[in-house]
Structure formats: C-alpha cells, structure tokens
C-alpha cells in the first residue's frame, strides 16, 4: 500500500516549505547563531588583535598566543592553571565517577527499598548553586567554626585536621572534592538510567547460571554501560575545563593561596576582566578563551572519534 502522507510534505510547494522552515526554525537559528556561534567566532577573531592605548585594536596575527605560551609573565600562570585544571579533572575521574557508578549499582539492585528516597537525596547537592556549596563547605572546613575538626576528633582522627582550603598543598584537592560532592549525582543518575535499561533476561540468565549480584554487576552490567561511562567522562571533562564558579566563590579571582587553586576559568576571568593586580585585557582574554576552546574540542573529538567509535552500542 502506498503511503499517502509523506507525499503531502514531499509535494509541498517549495515556497510553502521555505516559509514553514523559516517560521519553525527561524527563531532558534537566529538567537543561537547570534548569541552562541557568532560570539565564539568573534572571540577567536579578537584573539588575533591587540588593544591600542587610544581604545582601538590592530591585527597582530598569532602574537597573542605566542605571548601566552612563551612570555614568562603570561606563560607561567597559564601553565600553572592548565596543570591545576588537569589535576582538578583527574580527581573528578578518580573519585566522582567511581562513587557515581557504585551508588548507581547499589540503587539498581532488585527489590531495594527506599530507592526513591536515596535517589532524591543523592541528587540534591547537584541542584544547588555552586556558590552556595562553595560557601557552605568553606564554613564547615573553617578552623574558626571547628565543625570539621570536631567531627574528625569524634572518630579519633582529630590530629588529621588542617585548614585545608588555606594551604597551598591542599587547596586545589579540597576544592575538587567539594565539586565531586556536589556533582556525583550526574554520573549516578545517567549510569542508573543505563543500568535500568538492561533487559531482565540477561541478568536472569546469569543468575540461573549461579552468578552472585557482585559478579553480575562487574561481568554483565558494567560492560553494558561503558558507553554511558564514556559520555559521563566527556561531560566531566567539558565541565571541569570550563569551571569557574566554585573557585571564584571560595578563593576569589586570585585563586589563592598564591594561585594554588587557579584553573583556566579563573585565569580567563582575571585576564579578561582584570582584578586587583592587573587591568582587564579583552584581546588576551579572547586568546585564553580560544585556547580553552581548542582544549575542549580535543577532548570532545577524542570522545567522538575514539571512545564512541570503538564501543559497540547495545540497543535492546
């Protein structure tokens, strides 16, 4: 039997189709292009200019990038921020994602009671503003209040306490763990959803073969949700290399102590907007943003072309 209907669309007069497309797609394409794609391109273009004292700009090619990567005044803070950002990301991958997977695994156990309660509670910190989370932990870890110290003393580890946020050696790790605490809900929820999509027959078959829940999780379920873990990793990567709010709220634009918690987001803000130590420099700011764009692009491409291609997608 012929399908009459796609033909209605196919046979639509061209002018009418164009009119419909303009009506339905116009607003989205216009706003998205003007306020998302165009500013990105314009920023990259601006990165090849330099400001003049009179307020104008003139073309300098790739000189800004050369300054950023080689001039000691710029390159030292840049490499420091990049290194810190790598550590920030590594901590998320090493702590946030395993905890997310473990929680999702426990939540997806058959017949678990109070499932809804746990899910709601675990995801709650993710809903809060990073500013709120940053300040709340700042208070809790503050030696002035002594809550963290009291809690450690209660379990006999009082001597472990240190003003972690104030020490150069521990500030970045502490901030990363605060961020992990907040965002663990995202990997948990995505992996939980993927685990629920695994057909019962597979799990039942394994159980009939005598496998325990633990081995079912590691040998059957975990390999099946690897694509989701890949997705979670790339989302974490993009989020981390674009992070700013937490460090700015807790440590300010100078990302102290002595730039120990400086990451690309705060470095970009200082360069572009200025701070107590320097005036804002839009063209160098644009150069920093362009470098951040390429770092994120490399991460996303690695995911799209290596990770996702290699992994077979299982559709049920």
């Amino acid at each position, binding site marked *: 039997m012929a399908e009459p209907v796609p033909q209605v669309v196919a046979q639509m007069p061209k002018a009418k189709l164009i009119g419909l497309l303009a009506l339905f797609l116009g607003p*989205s394409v216009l706003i998205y292009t003007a306020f998302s794609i165009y500013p990105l391109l314009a920023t990259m273009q601006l990165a090849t200019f330099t400001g003049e004292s009179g307020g104008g700009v003139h073309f300098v090619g790739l000189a800004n990038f050369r300054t950023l990567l080689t001039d000691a005044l710029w390159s030292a803070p840049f490499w420091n921020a990049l290194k810190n950002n790598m550590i920030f990301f590594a901590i998320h991958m090493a702590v946030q994602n395993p905890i997310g997977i473990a929680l999702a695994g426990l939540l997806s156990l058959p017949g678990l009671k109070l499932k809804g309660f746990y899910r709601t509670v675990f995801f709650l910190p993710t809903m*809060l503003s990073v500013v709120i989370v940053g300040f*709340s932990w700042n208070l809790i870890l503050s030696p002035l209040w002594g809550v963290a110290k009291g809690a450690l003393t209660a379990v006999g580890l009082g001597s472990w306490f240190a003003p972690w946020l104030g020490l150069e050696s521990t500030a970045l790790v502490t901030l990363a763990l605060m961020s992990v605490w907040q965002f663990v809900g995202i990997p948990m929820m995505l992996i939980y959803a993927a685990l629920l999509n695994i057909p019962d027959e597979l799990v039942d078959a394994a159980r009939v073969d005598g496998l325990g829940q633990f081995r079912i999780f590691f040998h059957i379920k975990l390999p099946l949700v690897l694509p989701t873990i890949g997705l979670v990793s790339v989302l974490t990567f993009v989020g981390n290399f674009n992070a700013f709010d937490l460090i700015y709220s807790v440590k300010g634009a100078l990302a102290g102590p002595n730039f120990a918690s400086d990451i690309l987001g705060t470095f970009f803000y200082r360069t572009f907007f200025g701070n107590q130590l320097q005036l804002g420099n839009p063209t160098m700011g644009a150069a920093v943003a362009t470098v951040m764009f390429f770092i994120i692009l490399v991460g996303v491409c690695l995911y799209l072309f290596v990770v996702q291609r290699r992994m077979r997608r299982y559709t049920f």
Partner: protein
Amino acid sequence: MFLEQRARSFAVHAVLIAYSALALGPILLVVMNSFKARNAIFGSPLSPPDSSTFSLVGYAKVFRASHIFVYFENSLIVTIVSMGLVLLFGAMAAWALSEYRFRGSTALALFLSIGIMVPIRLGSVAILNMMRTAGLNDTLTALILVYIAQGLPMAIFILSEFIQQIPKDLRDAARCDGVPETRIFFEVIAPLLRPAIATVAVFTIVPIWNDLWFPLILTSSDSTHTITLGVQQFLGQYITDWNSVLAALSMAILPVVVIYVIFSRQLIAGLTSGAVK
C-alpha cells in the same frame, strides 16, 4: 540463605544511609545554624536550635542589608522567560528538523548541536562587546538572550528524540483533513510534548538559576543582579558576620530544596527516561 540475604540487604542500606548523611549533612548544618544565636553557632554547632538558642538576627540583617527580593524577582523573570522561550523555539525547531526533509537538514541539526558540548561562556568577550554596542549591557534582556542561546541545543536534541516517538498516524490524519501545518504543530503535536517538558526544564532552569558567570560579566547594578550573584556578593561582604552568612545561604538553599522535593519524581523520571541514555 535467608540470613545471608538479610545481612547483605543490611550492608547495602548501611552504605546508602552513610552516603545520604554525607550528602545531606552540610546542607542541614547550614540551615539549622542559621536559626541560632551567635554563641550557639560556635558553642554547639551540631545541635538543632532550641528555645534558648533560637534567633532570627541573621535573617533580619539579610533583609535589611541586601536587595534580596529584587534578586529573587530578577532570577524568577530571567529563568521563566528564558525557559518559556527555549521550550517554544526549541519545540518548533525540533519539529521542523524531524518532520520536514530538506537539503542541509542534517548539517543544520549538527550545527545546532555544537552548543551541547561547547560552552557559550568561551564567547563571553564578544558577548560583552555586543551587549555594550546594542545598549543591552546591565539589563535582564541580555541575560535572557544568552540563556536562550545556551539552552536551545539541548532542548532541541531532547525534543527531537521525543517527537520521533510520537506515532505518525496523528499528523497524517490531520494532514489528510487539510489542517494547516502550523495548526498541526500547535494543536496536535505541542500538547503531546508535555512529558518531555520536565526533562527540558531540568536542563534549562537549573543552570540558569545557579549561574554566576553571566550575571557577573553582564550585570553591574544591584537592580539587575540575580539571586546567585546577589548572595555571592553579600557573602563576600559580610563573611565575618556568621549569622547573616548562614541566613543568606539558607535563603538561597530553601526555595530550591522545596521545589526540588515537590518535583523530584518528575525530574528524575525525566532525567532517566530515554532522552539521555
């Protein structure tokens, strides 16, 4: 066997309850202490407020010293207008992309999905320049335009997947009756999108409400600050006044928690349903 199962279930709950305490503890601690007098905050931080330690002095200070209601209003306006337009424009675009075949439709879909992965923040230098040129600097309109551009890619992606699941017969029947395309969308398709709205709303509302970056870059006066920026600046200014700081934090936390608890069922259903596999 039975005992072993009981023991295992007990262990699982012990782990989950311990993690619940870790997730809730800091939030409870802040909210609880915001209702206490200063010496009680420091003297016994872990005990809930009682009749001798109860105090609202922090809240009084927040109301007096900040424009908290203006911030709330601004955040509400920005979030609601942005979300409404993201839903409307996003649904229209998703419909056109999944329903009409035309040259370049795949390329356009790819173009629109760039924004899912590439953060709009990286264009901030040019966005600020544009807003200054257009005279929109320090207005809520500037924030709304940026947030619509930020929210559209994900909204179009989720709504397209959803529209493709709607049975074809519905619009086909309407077309055979000669109903115009615009009415098919607004009267047949749009009402069916309701379940997907929860998902789209999560991905739109939460990042907008919580955003610090764009208010920081694009707004400079108290009358245009959003709640996140307003609270951030208040906290920075009164950092040594623990009553006020705890009260301001609680006032930012409580509305989000109340709304989240009311809608958490739909929200989690939206998050875990097919759209984001």
